């Protein structure tokens, strides 16, 4: 309790937003530290975009406060806040050139012409778009537009950069490239990035910390490893990665404990022979119901004798498609280390936080 808090870029307290009878955001508290790459992850309708829009100032909260760098901005207009946004549809001004788009914020702030030009060109350089200054947004590809939107926001050197599903409109290949690139850009400029996504892999790859949203509340906040390895609720276990829960009779029979437990698929070892489990290991016998060969790895769906079903993910270190698909129907044992099983809040009535 005596720990020194790092400077908070964003602090939300009791933030609530209702649209008529619908409560989109049900009272959340959240702190994002300076320089963090922070993800708000959740399914559509979970309230994450509404939270982002309240931080930007496009929506005003029904209750609660928004602080940016310690200053209460709850009632301020977007143009009075030290944040910039990369919109999901990029929202580039179609009648302006790339350069004019990037210079827009500086021109509004009356930055002298020479400095304006210099900063805009530097911003375009930082997103690797030199030579595109004179183009119109319509003459760019999706990935290039995305980078113009990023440059247009970054050139203002905001305290916090908000990104609304920044990679949602890109195809898979480009998305993977941009994930790496965004991360590199953020490290370079050192600005706090706060982004909204429904893609768990994207959140896990890019962020320092993740807040998992569900039904207007936050289920868990933590590093990608924490959220993935130790999901706090059944919802997080299911939404981030593949849900692998052992509960009820199975938990009593296999673990000798009451409650619900999560084990990630890649932590399970599929054992065919008579190899006894180690002292720190648990095991459960069952029958392979389905074998899904997916190139680098294979997924085994196993029905446990004790009831319930687990999925085990095995690297295809030696095995080929022929070898593994023949295992359908075979009796196996699943073995895992005890430190990879985590108790989870009882099968959640979705938690409305706050």
């Amino acid at each position, binding site marked *: 309790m005596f720990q020194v808090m790092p400077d908070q870029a964003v602090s939300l307290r009791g933030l609530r937003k209702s649209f008529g009878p619908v409560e989109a955001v049900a009272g959340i508290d959240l702190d994002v530290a300076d320089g963090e790459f922070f993800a708000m992850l959740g399914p559509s309708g979970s309230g994450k975009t509404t939270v982002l829009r309240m931080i*930007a100032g*496009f929506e005003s909260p029904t209750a609660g406060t928004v602080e940016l760098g310690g200053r209460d901005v709850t009632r301020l207009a977007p143009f009075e806040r030290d944040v910039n946004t990369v919109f999901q549809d990029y929202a580039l001004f179609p*009648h302006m050139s790339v350069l004019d788009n990037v210079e827009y914020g500086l021109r*509004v702030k009356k930055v002298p012409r020479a400095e304006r030009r210099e900063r805009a060109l530097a911003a375009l350089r930082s997103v690797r778009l030199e030579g595109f200054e004179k183009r119109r947004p319509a003459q760019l590809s999706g990935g290039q537009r995305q980078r113009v939107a990023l440059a247009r926001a970054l050139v203002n050197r905001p305290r916090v950069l908000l990104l609304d599903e920044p990679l949602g409109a890109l195809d898979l290949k480009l998305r993977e490239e941009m994930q790496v690139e965004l991360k590199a850009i953020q490290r370079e400029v050192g600005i706090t990035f706060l982004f909204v996504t429904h893609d768990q892999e994207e959140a896990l790859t890019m962020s320092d910390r993740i807040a998992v949203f569900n039904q207007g509340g936050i289920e868990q906040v933590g590093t990608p490893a924490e959220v993935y390895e130790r999901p706090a609720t059944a919802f997080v276990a299911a939404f981030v990665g593949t849900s692998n829960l052992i509960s009820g009779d199975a938990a009593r029979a296999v673990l000798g404990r009451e409650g619900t437990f999560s084990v990630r698929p890649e932590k399970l070892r599929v054992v065919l022979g008579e190899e006894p489990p180690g002292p720190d290991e648990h095991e459960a016998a069952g029958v392979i119901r389905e074998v899904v060969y997916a190139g680098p790895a294979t997924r085994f769906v196993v029905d446990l004798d004790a009831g319930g079903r687990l999925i085990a993910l095995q690297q295809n270190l030696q095995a080929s498609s022929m070898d593994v698909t023949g295992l359908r129907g075979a009796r196996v044992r699943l073995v895992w280390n005890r430190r990879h099983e985590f108790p989870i809040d009882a099968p959640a009535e979705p938690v409305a936080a706050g």
Partner: protein
Amino acid sequence: MTTITTTAASPRRRAASFLHRHAGVRLSLLLSAPLAWLGLAYLGALAALLVTAFWSTDVFTGDVVKVFTWANFTDLVTGEVYRTVALRSIGVAAAVTLIDLVVAFPMAFAMAKLASPRAQRWLVIAVLTPLWASYLVKAYAWRVMLSSDGVLGWGYGLTATVVTLSYLWLPYMILPIYAGLERLPNSLLDAAGDLGARGWRTFRTVVWPLTFPAAVAGSIFTFSLSLGDYITVKIVGGKTQLIGNVVYDNIGAANNLPFAAAVATVPVVIMLVYLAAVRRTGALENL
């Protein structure tokens, strides 16, 4: 059900399959009626007007003399009074267009960007409703309001004409601008605000440049409708004369159809010049 596949020889099926194979025949069958209408009734009337403008009337009998002459156009160009009337008409049309633009933009903006979807539907109906009422009734309503003991009591004349015409053609300005603003993504407004722009700058740098073609589309309506009007000016214009009146008086009182036709070409030419001028703005795609 199976009969469809077996009656391959039925004439209707054969015709249908013939048309399917010959897209050109299909298109010409579809378009022949509307094209005939456009060609004969519409362009034909315009051509007749143009031809008539080069005829004259016999001074004594009043009959139309079907001999080519430039006389009508010479009168039109040299007559001081006609130049004044033409300029006055352009002035009225321009003033009406400007007033409608200033009134319509905020209204269309409120309809497209601020109102709830439900309110939006009602507002569109509210804007359209006056169009369903008779033109004459509306003009006379303004006459009553403008009369010296009316609600407004401004009296009749040029101002009264401009005000009444502005009212009459307002929906034709609101609707294209409304449609243009509807097409403008809200995220662009958010983006401008996000980058520090306040209301006026957002309007000047983002909203206006992107809805300008729609506004020009609206102005084509308000400008051309005002330019051709002669009823409103008769009802609330007092002694004011516009091009429409000159046409009307030459058809009626003066019984000089050829000269009326010559006068009527003036608004047509003005509109052609106007359309040519605004073509590059993309307004014609917004009509």
